[in-house]
């Protein structure tokens, strides 16, 4: 009886481990393949061996010699960090106002914002393009940052749901003690919201980091381009002839964000579940 159960467990576990290994390969393969490709000699996408026989670092140097890769990288970081800071502040404030206060028209306003959030941004791009043109902001990073940050509060629902879980009594107690709205927000609510802040910052950061449609529309000159636009244009122009250089670019673009995500895993789970639990 006992041995039967043990055998069953062992069978279940070994089967699970096989499944886990297969899934791991499935998940990691594209990343590994690009990593390999970026070190492979030659330029072509095609390679007749799974594991390359000779390695080179030249594709990485090509990126900086032949393409303004360093400039693109700097641009992207600048835009992403600025949008992250502005967007996160706006999103947190919006979520907080909706979570803590009750005022006329609040529910309708929330519904409207949620629906607007579903609206794909570039559908209104022509209009934004003209607006930016009128403000003389075309081909500037300021324009991109403003548009990204202005769009961020539409995704306030996660923030609101998270703030809903903070006990109201805490806020009320502070209010009785005479604390104003701003001190309550900064001294009491925010310190309790680390997972939310990390989650929101990560999302706005990656949003700005990875967007390319809008950036492509607004940023015209090569020295203003971002990584996404630069890399996209790279394979758009010379698809199979420069594949390994493109792979090197992908590795450099992906590694920092990937590491950030992996380090922030715990916060991601907490941020996501707070939203999931409350919808």
């Amino acid at each position, binding site marked *: 009886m006992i041995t039967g159960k043990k055998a069953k467990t062992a069978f279940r576990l070994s089967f699970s481990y096989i499944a886990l290994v297969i899934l791991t390969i499935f998940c990691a393969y594209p990343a590994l393949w690009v990593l390999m490709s970026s070190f492979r000699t030659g330029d072509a996408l095609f390679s007749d061996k799974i594991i390359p026989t000779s390695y080179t670092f030249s594709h990485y140097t090509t990126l900086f010699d032949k393409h303004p890769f360093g400039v693109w990288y700097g641009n992207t970081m600048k835009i992403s960090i600025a949008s992250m800071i502005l967007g996160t502040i706006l999103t947190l404030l919006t979520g907080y106002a909706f979570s803590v206060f009750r005022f006329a028209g609040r*529910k309708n306003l*929330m519904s409207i914002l949620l*629906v607007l959030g*579903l*609206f794909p941004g570039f559908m209104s791009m022509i209009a934004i393009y003209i607006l930016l043109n009128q403000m003389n902001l075309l081909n500037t990073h300021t324009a991109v940052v403003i548009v990204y940050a202005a769009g961020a*509060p539409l995704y306030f629902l996660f923030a609101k749901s998270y703030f809903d879980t903070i006990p109201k009594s805490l806020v009320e107690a502070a209010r009785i003690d005479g604390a104003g709205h701003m001190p309550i927000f900064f001294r009491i609510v925010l310190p309790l919201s680390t997972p939310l802040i990390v989650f929101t910052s990560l999302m706005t950061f990656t949003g700005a980091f990875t967007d390319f449609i809008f950036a492509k529309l607004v940023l015209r000159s090569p020295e203003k381009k971002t990584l996404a636009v630069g890399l996209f244009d790279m394979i758009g122009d010379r698809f*199979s002839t420069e594949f390994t250089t493109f792979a090197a670019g992908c590795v450099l673009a992906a590694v920092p*964000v990937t590491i950030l995500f992996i380090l922030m895993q715990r916060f991601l*789970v907490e941020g996501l579940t707070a939203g999931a639990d409350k919808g």
Partner: protein
Amino acid sequence: MQQLAVEREYPEHSRKFRKKAALLSALAMGLGQIYNKQYTKGILLLAFYAYGIFTAITSLPHALWALATLGETETHLKKVGRLYKQVMGDHSIFLMIEGLITVFIMLVLIWMYIASIKDAYRTGKLREEGIQPNTFKQTLSFVAAYRFPHIVLAIPLLGVVFFTVMPIIFMILVAFTDFTRDTMPPAHLINWEGLQAFKELLRNSSWSHTFYSVTIWTFVWAFFATVTGYFGGFAAALLVQQKGIRFRAFWRTAFILPFAIPMFVSTLILRNIFNGQFGPVNQYLGMLGISKAPWLSDPLWAKITLILANFWLTFPVSMLMIIGILSTIPKDMYEAADIDGASGFQKTRLITFPMVMFSMAPLIIMQFVGNINNFNIVYLLTNGKPLNGDFQFAGHTDILITWLFKLSMEQGKYNYASVIGIFIFIVLSAFAIWNVRRTKAFKEEEAS
């Protein structure tokens, strides 16, 4: 009785304050406030009023003319002496946007106007009751204390109005015009066309065929993309979290990889991996002696590839969320089930699944809505290809949103694209409002 009580409290002769204040405010914004001895507030409002009248006189006629006609003089050549000189005509699109902005400002001013009348009336009423009206300082501190959410929301909302609402209204307006690349301002004028674009798109057989086919595929795609991502994530979560599994953190990190790599990078990589001629997948198949699959070049295969790639990209998010929910399910439920002799499968079906579904249902619907609109993966992976000769500027794997993009950015058919945009918007709003109204975040407030 009620009437009598009011009469007694406010005899007819003492009700002059509120009426007079409201009347004065109706005459000119701020006068009522000055009459109520709120001088600073009154003067500020009066200044706004002057600005409003100034705008109304200087720009409103022009704005209304601009919106009604979209410009009257076309860019043309004019003979100056012996040379022809180009004379710039009206720029319809700029006129439309400027007109919209002016109308917006006017609406805000009208709203302020009504609010100031109400305010004067209320303050007048307070004076009748013998209460001193607030000084400017008191007003400010009142606003800071009780209008905090309004102040906090003002900046984000301003951004949303300017960069989301106004462009949407603009886009809706474009659907009723003949704005295409051929009538591109400033060389040409744009005209109002009414429902012409709607008729063309829905009635003209070649266009409507594309429209209906693409719509159906959009929904099929969204359904499969959501279901595979969700159940894949569920399975992965159960696999990682089951009893006796070691190195959980390692497996979890490995499975998060697709989510962690920036999407534009991974999708571009996948496009190369599934390359029919040189891609590694087909190469390995070749090594195993299996003939190459037309991953991206055959319509059906391309659709399957798309769903597969989307599965790879999305299951980690579902997995993370479900792992979070799994940890909230009380252990004693499983213990009770063990005592009753339930099998592992029964426990999953009767406890885990309903508990997870309960929390995830609204999010699944939101994911479905998001997938209807999932521009990035389609654009970056297949770009709508393979081409379909029967379609108007769309390929087999194009969903509505990528078709819209192609129509506007590549074909310059802005009015048609706007019609599709309105259609998508209606579908999405219906889903979103229905869903949002049912979620806990909204519901729990009915009670409070």
